[in-house]
């Protein structure tokens, strides 16, 4: 039976949320304008309206999750993003796999932030909440799914499958409900994908807060006071957005097969750019608080960071990127709506800022080279240039679309080698930033002249040169570019550590945010240099095969073909592929796939053999995501097994194809990263022609390349699954097949009943063999075996060593800690001023 109630509820709540957002905006405008007598009642009304909006937004999210959680595949969203086999935490990922869910998530964070702001502010409530309510109206409109004539507003996630597709089945049976959904993209079946999107969207949502305070400041003519409440939120936003970016990078590293954590893909760039601008704005805002300069720059940067978030959303979700990105985002027809959303706030912000521009206080005096303002301003400029360098080429597809919409032709494409292109700029900008932070921090904490600066910097300088020299020699960094990075990174770490030590001695930990974050930056720089610059592909093909074309020889073959059980040399390791494995509920290790046979039910299998103490032959076991195969790769050194890695791949019919994830061996000083790029498909083998062998018991012979022993045969009293009758004869032959260090027993069976012959062949998918006992020739004491070959199981694999990648991860954690400390300090300042009644 089709359940239409939840969908209708969700849809109704969407409309309530949209209307209440508009009402809230109107009410807060009235509250803002109202005289003292009416103010209280307008405020109460505005708040109630926003709470209704909050409740309905939460209900939208609840309705959608209910649809996914209860497997309501009559709904398009559940059908196309979820399936029965998914555990609950991946159902959460299903929620935001689609764009509609992502908008709901965004709207959800906005209402949470809105409620917090209502309760932490006095003067700012009205103007800030007007901006919030308007943003919410735009966001909710994205999921409205209202069609007026040719105009389509939003794409509703509560659409029924029969309305979303024209499948013929619905003409026969409109109440048809599919048995199962098409599943969640396997790449998203990862714990980082459960927490990365909410973090990122909280980051997106929170960029609204400083923007809303700024707009409030411009409207109320408090041109500089908005900075105090906005600053902790700007830092919060940068922290969360930064965390979201890092989680995304880490997710890419552990689940995607491109061999790294950052690919300069448009989708990544679209988040990176607003983050850079946000960080720049924090710095200028802090400068303003200290010395009343850089207010105009702060205003521009805060507007820019919010607009860039909207621009990023437009780029990623409008379909304009098309084939420029490896991330597939479908065009839901929202591009016009997204564009209006962005332009609306851009025009308002620019208009308000321009109107207020000449009233905004500026400092006339020129910043001295020995002032912190000067250095921080340089830092902000560098961040701005970094952002500009990335957003410009990322926007090429948008540029093409723009030219084409005016009837022109533009065939510009993004740079062919994106990594090389972006790195050659970003690297040097990052070095400049690192150096600026170390110098800037000294200015920050003490008034300094030329002489004092030299004295302050000389010790960190000497220490960092010595430390760098040690790193360069020990880690063999001989490229001049990388040497400069090591120097800059170490200098940042040492100089900021000196500041940190001084601060901790003199005052509290509360002030340490800046130096902590900058130490993290230095570590990130060094970590990126090592893990990317010195990443080493060790799976260079050394099979010695000659290729047809001479030029092909010049190409590095960066993958190796591993036949099952066959040892292959790979730099310092000998690697052996040992076959496929599955993950079984209650078993902490992977279980060989060959001892499990599917029962036909989802995620359920019957054990064909005992496995350690975990289960016995004949037990029914539960598999965790049965379509996942884990390929066991053993790494040997000096004939001893060092470790095994199990890169994963999933064959998902609903999603159309194979998707694989890497597995890494993590050492303190490096990662060994392994993934499977191609594998044998033995689902539908194409058996070669029959080969017959006549062998006597005890004899040795060859099947294909395998040395095989025919140990003998025995007469069976009973066979699994067959009822033997009086007079039946069943004979089982025992063959031992040797494949390198592995010995396999194959036991084909031969049955005679009433002069009829029955054969039970054995199929070994790993060796690619089908063997049957064809005949028994008693007079010659020989057995006849029929053999069909397919091909041995194999994988094509890539392995990369990534040195010191942990320095990068530790650096990001330290940087995030620095942000966190700063948030507390700045929020504390704001609270004190507010409680004094000053704000």
């Amino acid at each position, binding site marked *: 039976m089709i359940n239409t109630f939840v969908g209708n509820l969700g849809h109704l709540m969407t409309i309530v949320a949209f209307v209440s957002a508009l009402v809230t905006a109107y009410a807060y405008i009235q509250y803002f304008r109202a005289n003292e007598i009416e103010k209280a009642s307008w405020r109460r009304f505005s708040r109630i309206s926003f709470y209704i909006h909050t409740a309905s937004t939460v209900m939208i999210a609840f309705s959608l999750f209910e649809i996914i959680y209860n497997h309501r595949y009559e709904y398009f969203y559940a059908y196309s993003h979820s399936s029965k086999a998914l555990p609950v935490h991946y159902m959460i990922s299903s929620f935001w796999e689609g764009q509609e869910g992502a908008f709901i998530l965004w709207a959800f964070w906005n209402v949470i932030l809105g409620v917090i702001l209502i309760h932490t502010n006095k003067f700012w409530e009205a103007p800030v909440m007007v901006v919030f309510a308007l943003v919410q109206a735009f966001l909710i409109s994205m999921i409205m799914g209202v069609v007026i004539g040719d105009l389509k507003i939003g794409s509703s996630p509560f659409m029924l499958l029969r309305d979303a597709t024209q499948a013929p089945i619905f003409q026969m049976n409109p109440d048809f409900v599919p048995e199962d959904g098409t599943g969640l993209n396997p790449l998203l079946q990862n714990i980082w994908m459960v927490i990365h999107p909410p973090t990122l969207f909280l980051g997106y949502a929170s960029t609204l807060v400083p923007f809303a305070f700024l707009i409030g400041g411009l409207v109320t003519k408090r041109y500089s006071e908005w900075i105090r409440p906005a600053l902790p939120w700007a830092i919060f936003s940068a922290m969360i957005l930064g965390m979201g970016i890092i989680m995304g990078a880490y997710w890419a590293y552990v689940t995607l097969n491109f061999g790294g954590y950052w690919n300069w893909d448009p989708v990544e760039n679209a988040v990176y750019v607003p983050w850079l601008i946000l960080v720049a704005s924090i710095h200028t805002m802090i400068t303003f608080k200290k010395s009343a300069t850089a207010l105009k720059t702060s205003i521009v940067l805060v507007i820019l960071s919010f607009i860039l978030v909207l621009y990023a959303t437009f780029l990623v979700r409008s379909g304009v990127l098309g084939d420029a990105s490896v991330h597939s985002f479908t065009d839901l027809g929202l591009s016009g709506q997204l564009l209006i959303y962005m332009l609306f706030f851009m025009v308002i912000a620019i208009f308000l800022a321009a109107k207020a521009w000449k009233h905004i206080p500026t400092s006339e005096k020129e910043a001295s080279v020995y002032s912190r303002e000067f250095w921080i301003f340089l830092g902000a400029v560098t961040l701005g240039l970094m952002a500009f360098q990335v957003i410009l080429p990322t926007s090429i597809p948008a540029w093409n679309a723009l030219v084409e919409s005016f009837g022109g032709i533009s065939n510009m494409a993004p740079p062919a080698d994106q990594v090389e292109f972006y790195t050659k700029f970003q690297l040097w900008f990052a070095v400049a930033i690192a150096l600026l932070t170390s110098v800037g921090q000294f200015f920050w904490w003490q008034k300094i002249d030329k002489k004092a600066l030299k004295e302050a910097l000389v010790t960190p300088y000497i220490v960092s040169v010595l430390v760098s020299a040690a790193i360069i020699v020990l880690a063999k960094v001989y490229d001049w570019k990388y040497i400069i990075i090591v120097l800059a990174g170490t200098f940042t770490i040492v100089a900021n550590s000196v500041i940190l030590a001084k601060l901790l001695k003199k005052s509290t930990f509360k002030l340490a945010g800046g130096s902590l974050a900058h130490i993290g930056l230095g570590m990130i720089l060094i970590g990126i240099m090592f893990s990317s610059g010195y990443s080493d592909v060790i799976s260079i093909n050394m099979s010695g*095969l000659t290729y047809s074309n001479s030029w*092909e020889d010049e190409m590095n073959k960066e993958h190796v073909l591993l036949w099952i059980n066959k040892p292959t040399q790979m730099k310092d390791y000998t690697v052996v592929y040992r076959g496929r494995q599955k993950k079984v509920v209650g078993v902490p290790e992977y279980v060989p796939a060959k001892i499990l046979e599917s029962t036909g039910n989802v995620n359920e299998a019957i054990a064909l053999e005992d496995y350690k103490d975990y289960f016995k032959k004949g037990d029914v076991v539960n598999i965790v995501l049965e379509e996942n195969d884990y390929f066991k790769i053993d790494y040997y050194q000096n004939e001893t097994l060092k470790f095994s890695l199990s890169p994963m791949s999933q064959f998902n019919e609903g999603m159309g194809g194979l998707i694989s994830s890497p597995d890494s061996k993590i050492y303190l000083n490096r990662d060994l990263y392994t993934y499977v790029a191609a594998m044998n498909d033995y689902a539908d083998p194409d058996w070669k022609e029959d080969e017959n062998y006549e062998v006597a018991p005890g004899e040795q012979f060859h099947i294909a390349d395998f040395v095989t022993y025919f140990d003998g045969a025995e007469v069976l009293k009973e066979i699994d699954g067959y009822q033997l009758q009086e007079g039946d004869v069943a004979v089982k032959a025992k063959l031992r097949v040797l494949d390198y260090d592995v010995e396999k027993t194959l036991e084909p069976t031969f049955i005679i009943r009433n002069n009829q012959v029955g054969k039970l062949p054995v199929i070994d998918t790993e060796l690619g063999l089908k063997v049957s006992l064809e005949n028994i020739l008693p007079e010659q004491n020989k057995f006849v075996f029929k053999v069909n070959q397919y091909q041995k199981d194999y994988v*094509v694999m890539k392995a990369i060593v990534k040195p010191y990648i942990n320095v990068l991860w530790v650096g990001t954690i330290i940087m995030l800690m620095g942000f966190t400390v700063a948030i507390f300090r700045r929020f504390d300042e704001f609270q004190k001023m507010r409680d004094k009644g000053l704000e």
Partner: protein
Amino acid sequence: MKKGHIIGLGIIAIAIVIIMTSIGDASSYESFDTAWEMKEDGDDKAIHVVGQLKKDSAGQVTGLEVGEDKTSFTFLLVDNEGTEQKVYYNEPVPADFQRSEQVVVIGSYREKEIFVADKILMKCPSKYQETDVQAAGM
């Protein structure tokens, strides 16, 4: 000259460098014919060609040849102007390659017979366009 002016000029100078290199390093969308003309003119820059895999009358992909060690392959791509070209890719065959509706190859001509792709982008049939809801399990 004031410091502010020097910084301003510096910013403008760097911005111009950024814009020029962005334009200079930007690739372009070409057809196989124009790509070959570029190669003959001595321009080895990697370019984008959009096309579809060659299919036989039964709709099956033809011309896909996997290297002996399975780490590289060649295939036939028909660009939007209908030109057919053999393309070499130095990677194992991507999993959903044969299902892709559209293939973008980024690379350049090595010789007339072979276009070497450094990177391949595939557009696969979107889940959103799925109209064949399986009747199984009714």
